[in-house]
């Protein structure tokens, strides 16, 4: 009996084990230690799984030893191994950051509850990514969503409660639409295993329940992805959540939802579905709308967290644009931006968490002269801002490059123009921060705030450095992304 053959299930079982343990111990130190051990173990497992599938092989694990398609199957291929690494890596870094950051934002007798909910959220996200059973996707989706609502509601201000409630309503509608789509697929094919479903959907092309299922799943996942116009929950949720929670959500929640979309489109429905329904033009239109409207709205924000929340909606637009274009370069850019944007936004929200810790808030009026009072944080924010714009040398440039190449391949020069102009809008809202931080002087000389603990500074700087690193050494990201796209498109008959 070797432990390595059980890695797929341990990826999910370890944080699931950590959650009730953190609830029982009630001591924040012990709960934190349990969580940190679990998330580092998850990171190690996800890297081992990633390593295993890079040659194109697929790991299949049968829960309960019931062979698929009768039992639930956990299946790791190049696409979800990449997402697993992102989620577990971000969880470990954010957890380390949260040890000090939640001291200021959450009452001390509730810290063990924060860690319990964090463990459940991590379980849910990892479960969605690794499972090969359609209903299992829904169950883990709800596990991660419910714990997310609780984490957001732990924010300091009372608006966090309203933000959590709004997210609850919209998120539950999204999940219910997804489960309706899955139900229709089950009724048509008789199976819940994603890959068995794909085989059985072959002769059912073009039948109305299958198209209805596609529609339901697309709309449901779009709510979770915060695709325009279903993005209303995101700005409030990211702004009023505790800093660690904002960072974790911005880096993982929408990205895992994008993974679900990719998995259903390419592993279940197959590419021929795009001929029956005008999914591609719709995705392109909504993505473009999101890119422009959200970037415009970001420029007018007075709070930095809210500004970058709107920026998240715009960046998700880039990812969906790549999916909408549908060629290999477009899909590669989507998978790349999924990872690159995850680490960039994670870095931004962690740096903003440093600002909250030192200065107590992120309103632009409070941040005047930040370049002098918190120089390292400001430079970090500028670097990540450059990645959002897509300046060469940062990871954001790599994904934008592939996106533009995809548009050129399809001959859509108007699309290239639109992508470049939305990057100009991104420049505008990044400039807002640069202007306040570097070209205005601090209101009071003693506005430097508290000293920043190392456990908070290290994760933030590590992620900022990764933003630069993955813009220069792209072997990991581009290799994983092209492998993932090959497994998505190449597997189609």
């Amino acid at each position, binding site marked *: 009996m070797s432990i390595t053959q*059980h890695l797929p*299930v341990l990826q999910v*079982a370890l944080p699931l*084990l950590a959650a009730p*343990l953190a*609830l029982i111990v009630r001591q924040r130190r012990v709960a934190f230690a349990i969580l940190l051990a679990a998330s580092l173990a998850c990171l190690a497992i996800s890297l081992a799984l990633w390593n295993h599938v890079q040659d194109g092989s697929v790991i299949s694990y049968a829960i*309960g030893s019931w062979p698929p398609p009768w039992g639930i199957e956990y299946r790791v291929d190049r696409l979800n191994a990449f997402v697993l690494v992102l989620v577990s890596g971000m969880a470990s870094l954010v957890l380390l950051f949260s040890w000090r950051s939640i001291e200021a934002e959450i009452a001390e007798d509730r810290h063990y509850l924060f860690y319990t909910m964090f463990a459940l959220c991590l379980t849910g996200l990892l479960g969605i990514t690794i499972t090969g059973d359609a209903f299992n996707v829904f169950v883990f989706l709800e596990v991660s969503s419910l714990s997310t609502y609780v984490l957001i509601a732990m924010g300091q201000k009372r608006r966090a409660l309203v933000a959590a409630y709004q997210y609850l309503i919209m998120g539950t509608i999204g999940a219910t639409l997804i489960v309706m789509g899955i139900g229709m697929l089950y009724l048509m094919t008789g199976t819940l295993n994603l890959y068995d479903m794909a085989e059985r959907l072959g002769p059912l092309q073009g039948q109305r329940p299958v198209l209805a299922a596609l529609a339901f799943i697309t709309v449901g996942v779009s709510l979770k992805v915060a695709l325009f116009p279903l993005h209303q929950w995101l700005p409030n949720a990211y702004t009023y959540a505790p800093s660690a929670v904002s960072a974790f959500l911005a880096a993982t929640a929408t990205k895992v939802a994008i993974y679900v979309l990719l998995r259903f489109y390419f592993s279940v429905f197959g590419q021929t579905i795009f001929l029956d329904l005008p999914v591609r033009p719709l995705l392109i239109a909504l993505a473009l709308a999101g890119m422009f409207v959200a970037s415009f709205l970001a420029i007018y924000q007075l709070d930095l967290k809210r500004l970058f929340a709107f920026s998240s909606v715009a960046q998700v637009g880039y990812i969906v644009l790549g999916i909408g274009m549908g060629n290999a370069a477009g899909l590669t850019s989507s998978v790349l931006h999924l990872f690159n944007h995850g680490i960039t936004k994670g870095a931004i929200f962690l740096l903003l968490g440093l600002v909250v810790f030192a200065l107590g808030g992120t309103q632009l009026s409070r941040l005047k002269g930040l370049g002098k009072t918190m120089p390292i944080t400001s430079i970090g924010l500028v670097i990540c801002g450059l990645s959002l714009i897509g300046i060469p040398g940062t990871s954001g440039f790599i994904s934008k490059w592939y996106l533009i190449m995809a548009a050129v391949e399809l001959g859509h020069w108007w699309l290239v123009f639109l992508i470049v102009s939305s990057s100009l809008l991104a420049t505008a809202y990044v400039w807002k921060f640069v202007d306040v931080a570097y070209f205005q002087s601090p209101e009071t000389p003693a506005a430097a705030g508290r000293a920043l603990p190392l456990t908070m500074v290290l994760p933030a700087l590590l992620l900022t450095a990764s933003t630069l690193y993955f813009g220069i050494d792209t072997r990991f990201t581009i290799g994983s992304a092209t492998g993932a796209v090959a497994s998505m498109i190449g597997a189609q008959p």
Partner: protein
Amino acid sequence: MRNDLILRVVAKLLIPFILLFAVYVQFHGDFGPGGGFQAGVIFAAGIVLHALIFGLDRTKTFLPEPWVESIMALGVLLYVGVGLAGIILGGNFLDFFVLDADSITGQHRGIFWIEIGVALTVAGVMLKIFYMFAARGPIDE
């Protein structure tokens, strides 16, 4: 409600039967409608009835809040424990075939313990929710 004689007497008669019915539903999940979720809710309903009639404080004397939180966590730990037992005994996660020499007895055993875990967690969660809502007094206008 404490002073209403009929309510008190009827509650004292009914609550043991409600709890017994919860145990019945729990173990007959294999042969009829039932199982962990339903049994947990019925059990919690019995305790909630007690709290409604006799007051939350009296209920908390024999079922205090830390116990309820621990029961919640114990249920999940039991479930994951059965799963890991499958791994330790040589099969996959949640493998019931290896829990006994005879596969069918193994399946029975696995489902038995899993459903107990589910019932514990569901009862704990329902009670915790009731405790939290009932403990908040009326808001002054």
